[in-house]
């Protein structure tokens, strides 16, 4: 009785795959004889699925082809009432392809990861070093992402890498979310600018040495028609010293 009462409480852990293999096997046996737990696990799995939707990201363009191309080589199983098990890819063919996988960097990394990343990072910051600045920055970015009028525009950088510019006129904030920026060494730095009627207004420097990250621009997007990126001497410049390596328009 006691054991069984205890088992009933495992529906949540089971639905989240948080049991050890032995416990999961035992609970699976229990499920076969406990309709209440079965129903609950079904519902909690559907709930967990919503947590997955919330972190969806844009798959890199090559992934679809890689999957589609491999289909003819995969024999399909006949129907059978057995829970399927995912088999890891093995074999020389896949190993050859791994470098491509690794190279296909996380393109326009996306998505909803944001909200949780903010929460998780904020907790981590708080717990580990009480980094109030980071918390504030995360919180500002989170607010910006959640703004109902936030727009997202994506661009690629000459020479590699790319970025998404998130801006909200209502909040008067803009974020620059970048990935795979080509490294510049120590003497130079990426500088951000608002473009407004042809003039360039300094909007901050990308943290030197970072190739992936997110940051808020100094100043707001009001009146600006684009965000530009230039390569400048370390410390930045009052005006661009060369043509932009990327320009991302901001909808007004």
């Amino acid at each position, binding site marked *: 009785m006691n054991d069984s009462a205890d088992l009933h409480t495992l529906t949540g852990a089971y639905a989240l795959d948080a049991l050890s293999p032995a416990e999961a096997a035992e609970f699976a046996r229990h499920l076969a004889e406990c309709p209440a737990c079965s129903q609950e696990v079904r519902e909690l799995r559907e709930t967990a699925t*919503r947590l997955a939707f919330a972190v969806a990201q844009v798959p890199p363009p090559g992934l679809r082809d890689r999957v589609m191309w491999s289909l003819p080589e*995969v024999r399909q199983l006949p129907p059978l009432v057995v829970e*399927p098990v995912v088999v890891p890819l093995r074999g020389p063919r896949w190993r050859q392809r791994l470098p491509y996988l690794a190279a296909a960097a996380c393109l326009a990394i996306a998505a909803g990861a944001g909200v949780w990343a903010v929460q998780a990072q904020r907790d981590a910051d708080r717990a580990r070093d009480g980094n109030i600045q980071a918390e504030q920055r995360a919180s500002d970015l989170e607010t910006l992402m959640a703004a109902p009028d936030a727009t997202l525009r994506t661009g690629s950088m000459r020479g590699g890498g790319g970025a998404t510019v998130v801006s909200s006129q209502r909040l008067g904030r803009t974020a620059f979310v970048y990935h795979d920026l080509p490294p510049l060494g120590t003497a130079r730095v990426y500088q951000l600018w608002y473009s407004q009627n042809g003039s360039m207004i300094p909007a901050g420097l990308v943290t030197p040495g970072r190739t992936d990250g997110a940051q808020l621009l100094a100043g707001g997007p009001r009146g600006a028609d684009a965000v530009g990126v230039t390569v400048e001497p370390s410390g930045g410049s009052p005006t661009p010293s060369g043509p932009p390596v990327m320009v991302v328009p901001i909808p007004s």
Partner: protein
Amino acid sequence: MHAVARDNGPVAPGPGSLETLLERVSRGDQQAFDSVYTAVAGSVLGLAHRVLRDPAQSEEVTQEVLIEVWRSAARFDAGRGSAMAWIMTLAHRRAVDRVRSAQASADREQRAAARDHSPAFDEVSEQVERRLEREQVRRCLGQLTELQRESVNLAYYRGYTYRETADVLGTALGTVKTRLRDGLIRLRDCLGVTS
């Protein structure tokens, strides 16, 4: 061998139709599979990325999961839940298995350590069309107690077992079990999930 329907743009199937697509996939219909890909690849990849925190490994897992969907579509049992839940369960298990393997864990510690020194966060670019879903999930997560939310977060998005979760949170095992359950139940009710 070519991806079909790509140029029609992503069209998320309505309720029920993913099940229909899987039925066609189980008979070797590649065009149906292409639609399944469109419907689920982003969520599978995003989930794998949350758990594994590594783009290359996340793509591998996504590829493995989708190929498994192709391979065992005939074994999807609609009596046991929706097609989406079936696929996302495959995805979560696969990602969790990988992150729990010794090598992956070592990598994960390293990555987590590296992450501690990073600014606010790296992964914030988002898909506009996902915003509503995310907003709703976030709002509902906001209604959980902190312990419920932390427990669900660590178990689902980090792939921790409930024992690891209890360790990390400094909480009794029984408490974590209960918080995972009542936290998910509260989420279920808030999101209006039915089954």
